[in-house]
């Protein structure tokens, strides 16, 4: 039935999270037309941003800035990888640095001990992380909420202990030197190549996130985030879904770690298995907005640039801890949904055109609803009992519409 196709036109773009994140249209001409305009704008913005990002290496004034760009991009990779778990399921892991470190060390050790070619080792490193993630995920996902966070922190602490303690194999605190994959390249060229490699990895992750976001699997994961018991009761195999998300998230983080190892060339457990790295991932994703495709990327650009700037201006002081702490506390207290929804609401609040559409929506809803109710009444007006129902329905429906209108306008004020 053609129900509510025009209400959809006004609200659907709000619900989408990425380019083309809207569901497949179920017909309805005007809807498709309007969305295409929106899509064009989105696509344009996306292309401009991508072009800006990709032209960064040629615009960077010196190799130092370029290397900072690589670092920021590696942050973007890890934050996006984190968001496969944190964003979809709402399970906050503070220990994702463990996957990063495992990926980095696996890659490095596979090159050193098995003399594999760097990128084969990198891929195998991802497989190693995947294999390690399975038992960890099975154990960690037996509990929810706070216990899960505890387990995730414990995991990074235990890996740190092991990699520091087992120094015969890992080099311990003396560090581990990774052979450079392109020994013939000069340093700026090396940075440039890795900038694009990280960008490609990020692209793959974003594509995967986007695909999951609009899949039934993603729907199940989001249901877990909203209400896990309820999702189970509706038949979502929550345990397997969560485990799958955890594996994807861990493996991608591991791949980012492996890439970092190849780029940076020197590993130390203190930095690779640092709880701070895990905290940065959470902060970046939260700051940008965990429910949005580009949220972690945006957060990484902001936090990553700030961190690099801090490092350059103030050197290695404790102040970056304080700054990170304050920013994290502010985000948690005042902006737990992140910048993207906050900015969108700001735009919506100051766009008069938008609000008029809102009002129209309420009116349209009322109209639509009357029609639908009448139609329903006509359809079910067979027996007396059914007729009674439709009459009942008419009354509650009207009440419902008022509620919806109020909810629609209330939403704008509330946010």
């Amino acid at each position, binding site marked *: 039935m053609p129900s509510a196709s025009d209400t959809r036109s006004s609200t659907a773009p709000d619900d989408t999270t990425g380019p083309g994140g809207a569901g497949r249209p179920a017909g309805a001409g005007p809807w498709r037309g309007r969305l295409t305009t929106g899509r064009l704008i989105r696509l344009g913005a996306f292309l401009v941003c991508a072009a800006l990002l990709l032209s960064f290496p040629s615009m960077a004034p010196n190799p130092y800035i370029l290397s900072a760009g690589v670092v920021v991009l590696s942050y973007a990779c890890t934050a996006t990888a984190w968001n496969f778990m944190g964003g979809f399921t*709402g399970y*906050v892991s*503070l220990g994702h640095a463990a996957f990063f470190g495992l990926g980095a060390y696996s890659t490095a050790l596979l090159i050193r001990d098995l003399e594999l070619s760097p990128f084969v080792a990198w891929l195998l490193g991802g497989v190693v992380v995947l294999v390690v993630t399975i038992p960890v995920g*099975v*154990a*960690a996902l*037996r*509990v*929810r*909420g*706070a*216990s899960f*966070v*505890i*387990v995730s*922190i*414990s*995991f990074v*602490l*235990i890996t740190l*202990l*092991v990699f*520091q*303690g087992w120094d015969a194999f890992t080099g311990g605190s003396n560090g581990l030197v990774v052979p450079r994959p392109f020994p013939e390249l000069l340093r700026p060229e090396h940075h440039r190549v890795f900038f694009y490699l990280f960008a490609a990895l990020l692209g793959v992750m974003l594509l995967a996130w986007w695909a999951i976001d609009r899949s039934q699997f993603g729907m199940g994961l989001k249901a877990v985030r909203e209400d896990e018991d309820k999702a189970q009761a509706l038949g979502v195999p929550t345990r397997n879904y969560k485990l799958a998300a955890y594996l994807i998230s861990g493996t991608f983080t591991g791949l980012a770690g492996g890439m970092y190892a190849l780029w940076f060339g020197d590993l130390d457990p203190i930095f690779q298995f640092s*709880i*701070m790295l895990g*905290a940065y991932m*959470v902060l970046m994703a*939260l700051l940008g907005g965990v429910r949005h495709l580009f949220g972690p990327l945006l957060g990484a650009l902001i936090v990553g640039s700030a961190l690099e700037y801090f490092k350059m201006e103030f050197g290695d*002081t*404790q*102040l*970056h*801890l*304080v700054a*990170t*702490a*304050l920013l*994290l*506390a502010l985000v*948690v*207290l005042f902006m*737990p949904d992140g910048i993207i929804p906050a900015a969108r609401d700001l735009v919506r609040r100051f766009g008069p055109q938008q609000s008029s559409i809102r009002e129209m929506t309420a009116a349209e809803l009322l109209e639509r609803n009357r029609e639908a109710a009448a139609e329903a009444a006509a359809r079910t007006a067979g027996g007396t009992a059914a007729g009674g129902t439709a009459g009942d329905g008419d009354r509650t429906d009207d009440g419902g519409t008022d509620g919806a209108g109020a909810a629609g306008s209330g939403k704008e004020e509330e946010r």
Partner: protein
Amino acid sequence: MNTALLFQSLVLGVLLGGLYALLAAGLTLYFGVMRVVMIAHSAFLILAAYIAWYFNQQTGWDPLFSLLITVPLFFGIGVGMQRLLITRLRPATLTMMSVLLTFAIALFIEGMIGFVWSGTQRRIQLPYSGDSINFLGASVAVVKLMAFALAALSLALLYLLMKKSRFGQALRATIQHKEAAQLVGIRTDRVAGLGFGLGLATAAIGGTALSLDATIYPSLHWHWIGPLMAIIVVGGLGSIPGTAIAAMVLGIGQSLLQVPLGTTWAQTLFYVALFATLMLRPQGFFGGRLAQRF
């Protein structure tokens, strides 16, 4: 390992377990009243140790006297933290977001300690620092014994407070069933604030005890939070006796393993215990049904 060494480790394990038990009791209090996992607990522990060290530096008095400052100060901070910060979080995401918030507080404290007192390692030198007592063949440092006595005394006080006083009753009622406690007229928000203060006071006492005997540095708290978290999960979130037993068992275990394995590997015991608990009994070995849900 000969028996003398074994006994020595056992005694040291008990002494360590006592401190763990006190600190884990604090964590359990926060979790009980607010369902908050307080990552910053061990950061406050280190802060108290630093204050004790600084107090000793400045006045030359015994660091134990710094308790007169830190205990009321931390109690106040705890109440303020609950009333001003934790209650601002949305109830729906309270558990996750409070973890992040307290994590931020931990980082803040670590950063500020490093900023104010620098990252240098610190240690209090006391006239009795090197003294030890012979106890049935085991040689036990006096400072360790004092630390244990302090922890045991505080735990006993906490126990009496919980069992005997009206406030303790209200606190236990709030921990067990918040809505029911509200129904019988307990102002659970106030109780939660005081519970937080009490929890943080254990960190003040623990930190002072720690300062007698340990070399301290700003990032030391990460070495404490992991074991403490493991203890409260193994013991069953929300159960004070459970965590006390787990603290003792794991403290002794760590102390015994230290001899053959060394300090680094002995610490992994906590994580092994944590993962074993999750696989065998996710609700903890002594806890109720709360644990798995939070």
